[in-house]
């Protein structure tokens, strides 16, 4: 390979022009590389720095803000590993630890919806695996442009089939998530994938290359040109002659079967104690894995790039470093254990290759057929630049805030309220999601207690005791557009409340921060406010942020998406047999949510929390008036905490047969969902103005169904926890009845709720 740019060639030809700008580096960043190396970088080094210093890998525009998550973190005895690891690790008791993280795959999912979404699932699963945990479930929060836009009909089915095919084939239950639509996401759909894994405390793995002489092994799929965006630019612009490398799409292609084998193989390697350090290969592939392992370890690593198994023999060092071929892992292994390591890989039909070793030089050195093509201090690449970009409150914020929804015409009679509820229930964002969720396997692994359609997903972890974990993700771009600080706290509040509504105790937070371009000061202001809101909110709720992901550049031209932080909350459930589900059901003699055999009388419905007239950013304003303005509802984190403690205590005491949090569409939508889920109607009487009671989106609220006979102890529990409660009706019949206003039969309710997505997507 005479065209390969070596370190000696770089020293000998210092003035060769290099395409740093095409690779996304600024002149100043390029200058910093030259200063670090004392010469121009080789093509391979330039490739490595360009991907390591990309926004995606380096968080260069966001990290000055993200420090708040650590600085403001509430004391938590549950945290075993926090920010900075592949994923945070939380102690849930009985010797079990849980690790979870959410990550975006937005742009690839727009370019190639099926593979983009599929590899998003694959990537986050490997993050969890690299912590030493067995991945046990996934969730997906997905957002698209207008539901009836032609491009949504292209993107959505592909994204859903991609998530389904990868997750189903990998054998991970999909236990919930979100689906929403807004014209602001046209051209920039959001595909955020969450994975959760479980391990024993002492299974925790580290991503560090330590121990001089230890071997570096790359295993899993072979390395191909997929996902290599800039490397072909590099090859043709500088060195010519590499034009024989076929141009291929820059979206990666997933192989879930390989990932399934890789998961089982890694877990066996961990169980046999064969791994000193391990890192998954995601964005920036071999470049990132080698650099981060070396930087986190003793610093030195020697890598033979020509030992990397290739699926395309025409690839050179820059392409190998940048390739984002999926289903690959890198491990550091003691020399005496290498043979056993390779045997385990062979058992699982996993290809593996020793590509290097840990050295004491403090430098990351890579060779290509004996010639040195990379020689740099790994910390210089792993700790990239850091920017404090200009941030300024957008000029449109005042006008938005002044556009109060109080001026919108409201329904004034029962007929109008009824029509508003039916319109909300059939709107794409609130309609029944079965068209999507039926494509996901929620049963596999056999431990799914609650999944989509419920407030949160709930998994059994320990069969003997019923110990389990609950998970929910929430985001609300409309609230965040009005006020990113409050909107982010509302998203956090809702995810926290959703976890609590299963009867679990919220423990930890992950986040996926989806924003426009960081070069726009108004976007940076939104980002700064959102991060500040989340850090303050987590401190107030006593739940630490354990990790997350930032996705910038979600914009078309100068128009950014609504700021959309998606917040994931993890909770621990002491006994999943006492879980709370949302469905109103008649006593059926089943265990758990459907009631208790022999109960007489109807369960009463109690509204928890305080309702104010809050319609800014509400589903009602959005669906009925296409309106976005005013202030979002006021978060009340103290009230959220009291509500969560009440729900956990009531679940433990067995006082409730259902619980459902109130969010988009307020009480009206929550009642309808609980009726439809359980197949039983209800009769309610509303205090005060019926429109406000039905459609306001005040935070820190839930409805519960109190078991007959448990009314008094539940009321006492509410008083003890300081949660306002109002008995508003009873469960029963086959209609949703709001006394003095309207009645809707369940059949009509169901028809309206379920017809929307099939009508749109076939």
């Amino acid at each position: 390979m005479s065209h390969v740019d070596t370190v000696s060639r770089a020293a000998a030809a210092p003035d060769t022009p290099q395409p740093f700008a095409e690779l996304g580096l600024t002149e100043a960043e390029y200058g910093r590389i030259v200063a670090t190396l004392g010469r121009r970088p080789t093509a391979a080094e330039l490739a490595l720095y360009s991907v390591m210093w990309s926004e995606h890998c380096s968080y260069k525009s966001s990290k000055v803000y993200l420090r708040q998550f650590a600085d403001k973190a509430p004391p938590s005895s549950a945290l075993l590993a926090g920010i900075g690891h592949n994923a945070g690790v939380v102690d849930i008791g009985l010797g079990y630890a849980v690790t979870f993280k959410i990550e975006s795959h937005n742009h690839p999912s727009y370019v190639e919806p099926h593979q983009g979404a599929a590899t998003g699932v694959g990537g986050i699963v490997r993050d969890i695996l690299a912590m030493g945990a067995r991945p046990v479930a996934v969730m997906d929060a997905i957002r698209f442009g207008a539901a009836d836009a032609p491009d949504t009909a292209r993107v959505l089915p592909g994204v859903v089939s991609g998530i389904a095919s990868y997750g189903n084939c990998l054998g991970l239950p999909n236990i919930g998530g979100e689906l929403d639509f807004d014209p602001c996401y046209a051209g920039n759909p959001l595909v955020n994938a969450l994975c959760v894994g479980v391990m024993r405390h002492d299974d925790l793995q580290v991503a560090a290359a330590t121990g001089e002489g230890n071997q570096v092994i790359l295993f899993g799929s072979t390395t191909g040109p997929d996902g290599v965006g800039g490397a072909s630019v590099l090859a043709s612009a500088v060195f010519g002659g590499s034009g024989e490398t076929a141009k291929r799409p820059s979206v990666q292609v997933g192989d879930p079967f390989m990932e399934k084998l890789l998961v089982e193989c890694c877990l066996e390697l961990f169980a046999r104690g064969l791994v000193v350090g391990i890192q998954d290969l995601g964005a920036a592939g071999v470049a990132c894995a080698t650099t981060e392992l070396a930087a986190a370890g003793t610093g030195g690593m020697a890598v033979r790039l020509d030992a990397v198994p290739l699926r395309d023999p025409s690839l050179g060092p820059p392409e190998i470093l940048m390739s984002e071929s999926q289903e690959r892992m890198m491990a550091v292994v003691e020399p005496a254990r290498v043979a056993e390591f390779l045997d385990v890989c062979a058992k699982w039909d996993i290809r593996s290759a020793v590509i290097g070793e840990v050295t004491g030089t403090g430098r990351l050195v890579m060779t290509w057929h004996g010639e040195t093509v990379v020689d740099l201090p790994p910390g210089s690449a792993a700790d990239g630049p850091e920017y404090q970009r200009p941030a300024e409150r957008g000029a449109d914020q005042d006008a938005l805030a002044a556009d109060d929804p109080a001026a919108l015409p409201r329904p004034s009679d029962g007929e109008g309220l009824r029509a508003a509820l039916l319109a909300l229930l059939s709107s794409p964002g609130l309609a029944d999601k079965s068209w999507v969720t039926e494509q996901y396997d929620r049963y596999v692994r056999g431990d799914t207690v609650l999944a989509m359609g419920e407030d949160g997903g709930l998994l059994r972890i320990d069969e003997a005791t019923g110990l389990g974990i609950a998970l929910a993700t929430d985001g609300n771009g409309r609230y965040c557009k009005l006020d990113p600080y409050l909107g982010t706290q509302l998203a956090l509040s809702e995810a926290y409340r959703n976890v609590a509504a299963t009867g679990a105790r919220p423990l930890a937070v992950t986040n996926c921060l989806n924003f426009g371009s960081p070069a726009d000061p108004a976007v940076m202001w939104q980002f700064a406010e959102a991060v500040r809101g989340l850090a303050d909110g987590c401190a107030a709720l006593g739940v630490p942020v354990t990790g997350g992901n930032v996705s910038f550049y979600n914009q078309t031209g100068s128009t950014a998406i609504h700021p959309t932080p998606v917040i994931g909350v993890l909770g621990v459930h002491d006994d999943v047999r006492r879980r709370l589900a949302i469905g109103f059901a008649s006593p059926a003699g089943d265990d758990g949510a459907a009631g208790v055999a022999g109960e007489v009388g109807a369960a009463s419905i109690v509204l928890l929390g305080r309702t104010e007239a809050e319609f800014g950013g509400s589903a009602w304003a959005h669906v009925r008036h296409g309106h976005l303005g005013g202030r979002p509802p006021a978060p009340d984190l103290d009230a959220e905490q009291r509500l969560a403690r009440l729900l956990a205590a009531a679940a433990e005491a067995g006082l409730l047969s259902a619980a459902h949090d109130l969010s988009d569409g307020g009480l009206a939508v929550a009642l309808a969902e609980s009726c439809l889920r359980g197949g039983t109607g209800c009769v309610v009487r509303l205090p005060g103005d019926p429109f406000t009671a039905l459609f306001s989106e005040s935070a820190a609220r839930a409805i519960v169904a109190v078991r007959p006979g448990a009314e008094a102890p539940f009321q006492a529990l509410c008083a003890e926890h300081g949660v306002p409660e109002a008995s508003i009706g009873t469960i029963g019949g086959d209609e949703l009845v709001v006394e003095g206003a309207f009645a809707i039969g369940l059949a009509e309710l169901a028809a309206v709720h379920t017809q929307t997505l099939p009508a749109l997507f076939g």
Partner: protein
Amino acid sequence: MTARVGVITFPGSLDDGEAGRAVRRAGGEPVALWHAQRDLRGVDAVILPGGFSYGDYLRCGAIARFAPVMGELVPAARSGLPVLGICNGFQILCEAHLLPGALTRNAGLRFVTRDLRLRVENARTAWTRAYSDGEQITVPLKSGEGAYAADAGTLADLRAAGQIVISYASGNPNGSADDIAGVCNAAGNVVGLMPHPEHAVSSLTGPSADGLGFFTSVVAGVLA
């Protein structure tokens, strides 16, 4: 004495653990069988679990049927060993010609996960004796290639011989011929079905406990 029920793990099997758990819940002892070993470890019955063997990148089950363990299983099944194929396992049994017909892409061309009402059409097989003819049960389906297909003559023969074991009782979710959800061989010892009874053994983690009967049937039969 406890009935020992083997569960084969192929590369890409996913519901092997749940099949084993269902066997234990039914009072049997699950025995792990590995695809690459030509050894049934003396078990009394065998389950081929759900999943995506070899990624289902070729026709579902088309590669798994050549696994070494199948070299032992096929003659044993022909000699009367009770064998249950669930979902991908059903597909493998069809590919191995232990059961008639084939499974093709769902009519809607999408993967379908749904809790379904099923009717037990034949409660005399090794795997359905705990039920009664005509009994309705609720069990989840989760598959992308679950549409049962066979030529008209085969379908008529199956109907006449009582080899349709399970049918969809409230709507056909995937375009299966004659609403067929499961069939058996002429002797009734080999049964294949697309729905997943191992995910309906407890109302905590499934829609019902109705699926347990498949496992108690074989456990009781072995001990009888």
